[in-house]
């Protein structure tokens, strides 16, 4: 697959979250990631989009979520940006700590980190930008080539 890049400006709605998730899944499958990896990538993107729309923009209809989906032969990269007041990821409590296990929320960033190879946060003015990267493993590429 040649390099590709597509950008979206989306309203702060659950429909936008679903669109980001589905776009990521379609891209991952098109790039040759196995189904299980495509599920994990799309879930990480869903969590990032939920953070942007819910915790960042608070469903504010005047604020937007910006999503960029990029693919190269070696990896896919998804960047999600919101227009909120900014997230400090290191201040999010560890959801695996015994005192947090039964909390209702706080697992999104943990799952993003668990499912992606690289996760980068950037403080914007305003908002937060998160970039999620998943590298294509050698065996995935071989399966993709063999299926051509």
């Amino acid at each position: 697959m040649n390099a590709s890049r597509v950008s979206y400006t989306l309203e702060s709605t659950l429909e936008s979250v679903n669109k980001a998730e589905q776009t990521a899944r379609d891209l991952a499958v098109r790039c040759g990631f196995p189904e299980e990896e495509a599920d994990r990538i799309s879930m990480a993107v869903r969590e990032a989009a939920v953070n942007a729309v819910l915790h960042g923009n608070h469903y504010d209809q005047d604020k937007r979520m910006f999503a960029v989906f990029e693919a190269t032969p070696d990896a896919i990269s998804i960047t999600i940006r919101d227009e909120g007041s900014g997230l400090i990821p290191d201040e999010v409590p560890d959801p695996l700590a015994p005192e947090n296990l039964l909390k209702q929320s706080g697992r999104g960033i943990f799952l993003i980190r668990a499912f992606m190879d690289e996760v980068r946060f950037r403080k914007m003015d305003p908002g937060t930008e998160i970039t999620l990267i998943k590298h294509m493993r050698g065996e995935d590429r071989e399966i993709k080539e063999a299926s051509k």
Partner: protein
Amino acid sequence: MTMKASTRQLDDVTIVDLSGRITLGEGSVVLRDTIRDEVAQGHKKILLNLGDVTYIDSSGIGELVSAFTSVRNQGGELKLLNLTKKVHDLLQITKLYTVFDIKDDEAAAVGSFSK
């Protein structure tokens, strides 16, 4: 596909058959309302059948945890039945596999509730 919840009684155990996606928004609300209604009716032995749940996000996981704690706080028990591999993996990653009582046989699960 959104989420559907239907309930049935077996002995004194309420089995909630869930299907579809438990995600932020409708899916999580359906689960929350179903558990609230069952607890309000005095049903405190609840078995959540997740066999047809195709997808669950962190909000859905939070809703499962919330259901578990709200039933327990009322002196009841909530157990999970028929996890798909996806849900099983998620509960393992989040260390919740050890929190929930998880079953894969309905009859055995119903029999496992305290008398």
